[in-house]
């Protein structure tokens, strides 16, 4: 089976400084792939290439077997959902307005919109009465859940999350991790998630892709990274982030 997304020899530089060195990465269908690494490792740039927000200087991006170009990106994006660190909710629209903007533009019938909204609210554990609120009236955790509803509204084949939990406090974050894990499990959707938190990556991801300085250092399961580190950096990164025995938080 072809990968859902193939980054084929892509690279990208910003003002002469390489953010991503030429690399190839395949995102397998129906699984959760986590791009993990320290700040500046290029993980967010790779995620943005997948949705066409960043164009690679070299190489190409294949989405579902077809090249993702400037011309094809808008249509393909209807099959993707993106959740950003701050939620990226439009402040002038209500929760419902944010979540249903594209569905209404596509002319979905009202009953279909309502049914989809209800199902998603239940899945992300939001009460129905948030629908009439504006983003400024939501808590940080609620905003991320609404952002997730918006990203999932059109039943995308690819869900992309960029540090989606990074701005939340630990308790909310842990609750949301649980909800995300449950949601990923119940859906057929392919998920690509970016985080600098190895514990989060291990908890949510099927495949981890560890990046450093715009290069892939190691690709595998969390167990692979812990038990068979490819090089001293991986070992160092794992040790720096591992939750200590006895349950004390970092």
């Amino acid at each position, binding site marked *: 089976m072809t990968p859902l997304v193939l980054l084929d020899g892509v690279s990208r530089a910003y003002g002469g400084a390489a953010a991503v060195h030429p690399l190839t990465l395949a995102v397998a269908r129906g699984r959760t792939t986590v791009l993990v690494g320290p700040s500046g490792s290029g993980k967010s740039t790779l995620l943005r290439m997948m949705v066409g927000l960043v164009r690679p200087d070299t190489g190409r991006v294949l989405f579902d077997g077809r090249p993702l170009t400037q011309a094809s990106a808008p249509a393909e994006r209807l099959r993707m959902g993106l959740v950003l660190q701050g939620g*990226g*909710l439009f402040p002038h629209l209500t929760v419902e307005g944010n979540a249903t903007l594209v569905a209404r533009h596509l002319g979905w019938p009202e009953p279909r919109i309502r049914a989809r909204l209800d199902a998603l609210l239940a899945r992300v554990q939001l009460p129905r009465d948030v629908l009439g609120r504006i983003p*400024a009236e939501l808590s940080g955790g609620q905003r991320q859940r609404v952002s997730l509803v918006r990203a999932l509204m059109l039943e995308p084949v690819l869900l992309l999350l960029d540090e989606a939990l990074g701005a939340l406090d630990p308790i909310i974050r842990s609750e949301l991790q649980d909800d995300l894990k449950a949601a990923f499990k119940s859906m057929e959707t392919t998920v690509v998630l970016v985080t600098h938190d190895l514990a989060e990556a291990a908890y949510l991801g099927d495949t981890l892709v560890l990046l450093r300085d715009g290069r892939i250092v190691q690709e595998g399961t969390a167990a692979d990274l812990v038990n068979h580190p490819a090089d001293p950096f991986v070992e160092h990164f794992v040790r720096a982030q591992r939750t200590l025995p006895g349950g004390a938080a970092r």
Partner: protein
Amino acid sequence: MNAGLTVLVLALVLGAGEVRVGSKGFTESVVLGEIATRTLAASGIPAVHVRELGGTRILWEALQRGDLDIYPEYTGTLAEEIFSGGVPATLEGLRPALAAHGVEIAAVLGFSNGYALGMREPVAERLGIRRFSDLLRHPELRFAFSNEFLDRGDGWRALQRVYGFPQKDVRGMDHDLAYRGLESGAVDVTDLYSTDAEIRALGLRVLEDDRRHFPDYQAVLLLRSQAATPAVRAALAGLDSRISAPEMVALNARAKLDHVQEARVAAEFLQGAGLASAPAKTIGVAERLVVNLRDHLLLVAVALAGSVLVGLPLGILAARRARLGQVVLGAVGVLQTLPSLAILVLMIPLLGIGARPAIAALFLYGLLPVVRNTHAGLTGISGELREAAEALGLPGMTRLLRIDLPLASPSILAGVQTSAVICVGTATLGALVGAGGFGQPILTGIRLADVGLLLQGAVPAALLALAVQGGFELLGRWVVPRGLRLPGPDER
């Protein structure tokens, strides 16, 4: 038969339009304009008086374009200002030159109103000044001249060339304000017209032009030949040689010092001289206010609508294309730096007089705030919202209408508000080109030193600006989405 029919049709067509009489922004010209208008009306020719236009050039251009049919002018002004000294300032010399421009002299009114220099009698007496040449001995004297006199071909510069005046303190100001300055002692010498009412009222000494610099300034009525039907010609010819210099001084004094409306002054004169006149109609304060408000609002509304309709797309374009955006912002910025008066006058050859040049000038003036704020509002959208919007996969126009413009709406609305307030203020200058509005009473108030009249324009204009400001605040609550009036997610 056919020819007769043609003449009849022509007469109907020509008769259908009103004859437009113009006047310059000083009392004598307004009174003469009124006299001409009422004389035409009395002959059954529908006529309107477009009062107090900015200056000789504006009236002449309007006559050339056919926006005006008639206006009072002076032979010396024609020779020096219009024909730049290339034509003698005599009736015989001017007639062919005017004919070449499709203009004829319809009446020679019978008096001259030459330029002269004047001082207060006691000051002139103390310093022993009788003639222009005597001024050479007093370089400390302060001169104040009307702006037109400073600029025109036969004005100050030519005078200085002929006499070699040494005075350094020479400034331009409104002719009527110069009289106020003379009265208060802030000014020693000013230019004056020999039929000015103030000469007697303020006790001024008219100095002798001992080197005969100033040409003759016989008052005439200019008539655009294309508008010169036999009826119009006959009506105006009735005014030939009917106004003597002392009569004109008296009429000026009546309007300016006794504060009698020019329309009434003109009617009284025509009746006293045994000439026909349409009944005098005096416009009341309330009616004038309504008319001025209507004219003012029309100027502002049309100009503002234009600024928004053009400025919004320009702002969007500027935000989309960074390099082109700099060019657009620069261009509308340059428009803003041009003096509004200059824009008004530049518009006249293109658009004539009346509301059109004023609207065009206000439109250009109102562009910058709209373009700049649209650009700023769109480029100010945060990176995350920009990415979120793009990732949705909406087509460009839908995204613009549903996301980008609403997000930029507080900034855009603020720009439109700025534009509107500027417009309300600047529109008062529209009266200089005959656009009416609250500038009209301000202009007349300055001319007649009538503070009450001035306030009839200034106060409503100021109130209107406040109302517009307040109106936009209210509009903001309706147009700007609720979520953009609260502190945003990032600010909490």
